Each structure stands twice: as structure tokens, then as C-alpha cells.
């Protein structure tokens, strides 16, 4: 079953099967920038600032230096990479990084291709799974922006490759090197990697599918990462403001979800029984989705529109296929790896949803980690032994993959071109936004403070260092508070998506613009951005 990628003689069809997902991946992650000629996404602005500061002040100290922020610089992988690339190419970080980092992110698709091929030895499975993953909206929309996670994800995925193989010094060295890259780039991803590296040998030892000696030796991999993580934090990153922190009772809850998901998946993997569990899981997904169209399921979560609920159909199809694929997947060391790879993000999803008060901030980031193994399993199901459909299997599987890919890609279009609010439509920046921020920085406005939504805050505060108060503007525009302390920045997309707070736009009253016209004076206007005082 197993064939090494390098050993295979590649035909024209095979090259096409590899190229298609790669092209799709690169296109979906780079077209937002090419369309608007400005960086896509909010999270990139502090990273651009740090990169420019590295280029300006080097050689210099990174942590505890006021030239940088007090969070992102402690995980400086993307900024260091951006600075190095900028020196090599001579292009400015603001021009280079919005194109280069999403391109790097699209290499995750290539790693998924290699992983699926190593796991199954089937090029169709490798191509289908990487196509399904490349088109997924939560990955393609998010990784079209410059974030720490965008840069870290392909390294994270590559770090999983040594976990699939027997323990030896070569694998340990490769894992240590790659996982240090993840640690340097994103602490939460390093934590997820640690859990996966721990889950694989633990599951293997419990179910007896890894030889005792190999299973025990594999525990050295998470031990190495854990040791590096603790050392890195104690020596360098301890002053960092951690966005995700855990209390002891939350650690207990997280351990509970990890034990539950690993236990259930191991049971299904070993016995291939309990088909009712599949139905229960699917029912839970449908119930959560159904509830979300009527009620706020978690604090700060939006109430979904029926349109968005319909757009989730391809993911439900992939979920059903993945469950089927998991049962088809032969019991072996590789199925132990699949169990570990899948159980950790599933457990973190459950933990985020049910064990944290504001879990929504984590859950939308976890979907992409669940979807990577799910897309491999879905492709396994499509290539499965459907003996009754032997004649139709190939065309049917192709139709399903194309339908899922098209439907998922449509969400990227809905977000990037149509600015759909709940799909991150307000992440579109224009060159005029950058101009307005630069103008504001050069004009001292009331001690340099402004009010504006999260989209404004990331650019003005993260890139130009102007303090922005997000709630003040919302309170004024919705009539909660009639006194505006700081000048307010608005932009034309606000009329489409509302006031961006807590990950998506909050609706504004229909007369919000006339409220501004009647009560405030316009200080700056470039046709897109307006500053009111």
C-alpha cells in the first residue's frame, strides 16, 4: 500500500493531480491582495510594523524593546522571515509580505498531499484531500492574510510527517528542528503540536498498535518540544501577554475532552463498531448548526443566516465522508497517527465550545486543524471499496470532490468580493485606508487617540501606533452614549458590514451616517475613510 513519493515514477496525470490543488491553493490565498492592492486581513498590521522595525533598528534586541509590540515580537518567526525576504528581494515588507506569506501558507496543501500519499499510497486520495483542504473557506480566507498562524501552519503540518514514521534519530532531529520553527512562530500551534505528538504514541501504546519499544521512544518527540517550549518561555517569552491562558480547572477540562475524543476514536478504530456514534456526532453538528440559526450558541457568536447555514453543506458532506473513511482506514500504525491527529483538534473544539466562557475566539481557528485530517479521511472514503458502484465510483467521486471544492470556494468569493459579514468580509483593506492612517499619524489629533472599530484599530494602532478605543465609537453610533470623547474613523465598508467588534460586524442603526453628519464635523475624507470630530 505504501509507496514513497520520491520512488514513484510520475506520469503526466500524476503531475496534474499534484498541480491542481497547489494552483487552487495559491490562487485562493493570493487573489484578495491582488484584487485590492492592500494587505488582506486585520492581524497582519502589527506584524508589518515589527518587520519594518527589525529592518530599521537591526541589530537590536527584540523582546522588551518599545520599537516592537509586547505580544507578537515574542513569537517572531513571521516577522524575521519577512525581514529576511525583504532584504533578499529589496521589496518593502508592506508590498512583499501580503503576497509571500499567503504563498507560504498555500504550501500546507502540498504537505497535506504528501501526508495523504504516505498514509494511503493512493494518488487520487492525495489529490482529492489536498483539493478539499485547499478550497476550505476557513483556511483559505484566514491564510490569505498575514498572521503568525498563516506562517506557522505549513511548518506545523510538516512537523507531523516525522510522527507518521517509526522512531529514529533522523526523525527526532527533523521533528525538533521543525517544531522549533513552529514554537518561534506561534505558541498556540506549538501547544497543539505538542498534544498531537503526545496523543499518537499514547494512543498507540494503549491500543497496542505500536510496538512497545517504538511507542515509548516516540514519547521523546513531545518531550523534546515540551522542553524547548518551557526553555523558550522562561528565557525569552515570559513577558509576553498570552492571548490564551488556562486555569488549573480548565486544564482538567481540556484533559477530559482529550481523553474522551481519543477514547472514542480509538474504540471506533479498533472495533469498527458503534455506528450510532457517527449518527450522534452528525446529529450534534446539525443541532448546533440549527440552534445557531435561531439563537446565539456561544458568547459573541453570531446568529447564522440561513444562507450561511446552507453554505456549510459541503462541510457536512465532508464530515459524513470522513466518518466513513475512518471506518475504512485499515488498523495499523498509520491509523494510530490519524486518531492522534484528529482527536486533538476535536477535543480542543469541544473544550472551546463547552469549557470556556468566550470559546468562540478559539473555535473558529480550530476548524482548519480538524478539516485537514477530515479531508484525508473523506478522500479515503471516496476511494473506498464501494463494490456495488465499481463502474460509477470514479466519476461519482470526481463529481463529489468538484462539488465540494466549488461550494467551498464560493465562500471565499462571498467573503472577499461580496464582503459577507460573517465570513470576514470586512478584512478587505484598500490603499486609501493606509493613506488615512498615515495622514492621522502625521496630524496630532487629541493626544493621538481615536475611536474606531476593530478593523480601524488593527491598522491605526497595530501599524501606526495610534491608540484606538473601539467601544466608544459603537456606543456613539448606536445612541448608547451621545458624547464622543475621541475623533471617530469610519469607512465605506461599515455601511455594508456594520461596526466590526468581536470578529464580525455589529449592525448599526439605519440613520448612523446622518447622525454623524448632523452632530459631528468632518475632519478628513478620502472617499473611503472619514474622520469625524
Amino acid at each position: 500500500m505504501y509507496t514513497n513519493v520520491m520512488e514513484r515514477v510520475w506520469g503526466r496525470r500524476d503531475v496534474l493531480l499534484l498541480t491542481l490543488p497547489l494552483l487552487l491553493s495559491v490562487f485562493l490565498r493570493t487573489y484578495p491582495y491582488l484584487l485590492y492592492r492592500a494587505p488582506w486581513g486585520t492581524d497582519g498590521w502589527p506584524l508589518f510594523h515589527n518587520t519594518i522595525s527589525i529592518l530599521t533598528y537591526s541589530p537590536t534586541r527584540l523582546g522588551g524593546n518599545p520599537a516592537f509590540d509586547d505580544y507578537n515580537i515574542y513569537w517572531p518567526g513571521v516577522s524575521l522571515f519577512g525581514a529576511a525576504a525583504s532584504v533578499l528581494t529589496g521589496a518593502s515588507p508592506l508590498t512583499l509580505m501580503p503576497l509571500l506569506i499567503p504563498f507560504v501558507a498555500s504550501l500546507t496543501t502540498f504537505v497535506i498531499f504528501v501526508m495523504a500519499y504516505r498514509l494511503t499510497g493512493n494518488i487520487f486520495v492525495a489529490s482529492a484531500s489536498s483539493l478539499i483542504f485547499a478550497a476550505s473557506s476557513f483556511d483559505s480566507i484566514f491564510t490569505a492574510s498575514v498572521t503568525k498562524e498563516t506562517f506557522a501552519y505549513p511548518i506545523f503540518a510538516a512537523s507531523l510527517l516525522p510522527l507518521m514514521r517509526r522512531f529514529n534519530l533522523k526523525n527526532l532531529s527533523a521533528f525538533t528542528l521543525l517544531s522549533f520553527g513552529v514554537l518561534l512562530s506561534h505558541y498556540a500551534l506549538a501547544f497543539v503540536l505538542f498534544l498531537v505528538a503526545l496523543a499518537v504514541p499514547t494512543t498507540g501504546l494503549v491500543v497496542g498498535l505500536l510496538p512497545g519499544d517504538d511507542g515509548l521512544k516516540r514519547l521523546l518527540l513531545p518531550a523534546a518540544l515540551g522542553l524547548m517550549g518551557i526553555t523558550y518561555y522562561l528565557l525569552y517569552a515570559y513577558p509576553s501577554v498570552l492571548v490564551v491562558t488556562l486555569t488549573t480547572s480548565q486544564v482538567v477540562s481540556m484533559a477530559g475532552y482529550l481523553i474522551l475524543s481519543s477514547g472514542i476514536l480509538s474504540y471506533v478504530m479498533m472495533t469498527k463498531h458503534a455506528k450510532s456514534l457517527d449518527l450522534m456526532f452528525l446529529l450534534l453538528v446539525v443541532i448546533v448548526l440549527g440552534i445557531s440559526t435561531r439563537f446565539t450558541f456561544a458568547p459573541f457568536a453570531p446568529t447564522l443566516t440561513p444562507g450561511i447555514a446552507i453554505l456549510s453543506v459541503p462541510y457536512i458532506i465532508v464530515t459524513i465522508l470522513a466518518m466513513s473513511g475512518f471506518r475504512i482506514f485499515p488498523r495499523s500504525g498509520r491509523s494510530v497517527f490519524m486518531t492522534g491527529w484528529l482527536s486533538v483538534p476535536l477535543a480542543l473544539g469541544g473544550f472551546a465550545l463547552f469549557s470556556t466562557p468566550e470559546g468562540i475566539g478559539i473555535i473558529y481557528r480550530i476548524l482548519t486543524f480538524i478539516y485537514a485530517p477530515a479531508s484525508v479521511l473523506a478522500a479515503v472514503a471516496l476511494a473506498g471499496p464501494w463494490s456495488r458502484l465499481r463502474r460509477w465510483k470514479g466519476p461519482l467521486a470526481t463529481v463529489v470532490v468538484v462539488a465540494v471544492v466549488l461550494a467551498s470556494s464560493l465562500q471565499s468569493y462571498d467573503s472577499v468580493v461580496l464582503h459577507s459579514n460573517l465570513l470576514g468580509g470586512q478584512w478587505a483593506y484598500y490603499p486609501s485606508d493606509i493613506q488615512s492612517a498615515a495622514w492621522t499619524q502625521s496630524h496630532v489629533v487629541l493626544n493621538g487617540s481615536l475611536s474606531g472599530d476593530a478593523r480601524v484599530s488593527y491598522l491605526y494602532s497595530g501599524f501606526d501606533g495610534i491608540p484606538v478605543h473601539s467601544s466608544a465609537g459603537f456606543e456613539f453610533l448606536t445612541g448608547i452614549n451621545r458624547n464622543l470623547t475621541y475623533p471617530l474613523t469610519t469607512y465605506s465598508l461599515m455601511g455594508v458590514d456594520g461596526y466590526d467588534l468581536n470578529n464580525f460586524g455589529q449592525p448599526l442603526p439605519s440613520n448612523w451616517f446622518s447622525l454623524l453628519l448632523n452632530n459631528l464635523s468632518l475632519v478628513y475624507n478620502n472617499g473611503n475613510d472619514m474622520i469625524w470630530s
Partner: protein
Amino acid sequence: MMFKLSIGKGEEFLNQSITLGSIVALIAGGLSVTNLSTSFLNVGTNSNYAPLVNSLSSELTGLLFAWVLPVTFLLIFSSFILGLRSGQLTSRTHTILRYAGSPAGRVRQLMTIRLLLLSLTSWLFGWVGGLIVSQLAFRFVAIATASPYLIPFLSPLDILVLALMTFGSIFAGNSVLFLKTGSIIKEEEVVSL
């Protein structure tokens, strides 16, 4: 081999583990909900829900105390009954082992391993199940009643207490069988001499 011999029939072992785990889950669920109400009050949150939570907390604390004793008895009694059943199921294996020339201590060793595994799985699935079911229930109730979401939780100390309770009661519940098996082995040894 040792594990397989001590576990015996996997399905029977799983059934016993799930039965005992369900009882541990009841205790864990009760503990997690009580923790929630006490922590809510300890924080001193000024809320309209305070009187409701206050009364709920005292009710729950009372309920927990009223629960702990019978549930622990239930745990010991269940493990005793299950121990007897387990003895029935494994006695054949033990007899074969004895006739095959295994030393007497080996049978006790197998029983100890079985009890340890049973305690470990019951404890693990018990606290995990109890905690997660209570969190799921609270989340859905919070949605249904549009009330703030309060999260039931367990502290590491609770996990330790549950471990002591589970391991203790399972070993206590099976002690009669353990001693009885020992005496049978001694009689057999006398006969063989």
C-alpha cells in the same frame, strides 16, 4: 499476555468498566456543579441571579451530601456484585493456570492487575463523562433559558478524591473475593502436597 489474561473477556470487562464509570460520573457531575455554584458565590459577583444561585447552591450542597453516602455505598455494592460476577468469569482461567503449574501468587497478581485496570478505566471514564455531560447540559440550558453560561468544573483535588474513592471502593468491594480466592488457593496447595 499478562494483561489479556487478567482482563479476560473484553466485552465483560468493558461492561463492568462502563457500569462503575457511570456511578463515578454521577459523583463527578455532582461535584462539578457544586464547584460552580460555590465559586460563583465566592467571587462575589453582584448579580440579579445571586439569590437564585445562593438557594441553588445550598440545595446542591445538601443534595451532594445526601448523595455522596448512598452513591459511595452503591459504588462499593456494585463493585462487590461485579466482583462476584468477575470471579465467576475468571475462575475458569485461574483454575487452568493453577493446573498448568502457575504459582499461587500469580493468580492474585492477575486479580490485582484486573482490579487496577478496572479502577483506572472506571475513574477515567467516570470523571471525564460526568464533567463533560454536566458542561454540555449547562450550555444547552443556558441557551434554552437565555441565562449566562456558567461552566461546571473539577479541580485537580476533586480528581484525586474521585481516584481515591474509585480505587478504594473497587478494591474494598472485591476484597472478599480476593481473600476467598486466596483461601481456595491455599486449600488447593494443601491438597496438592
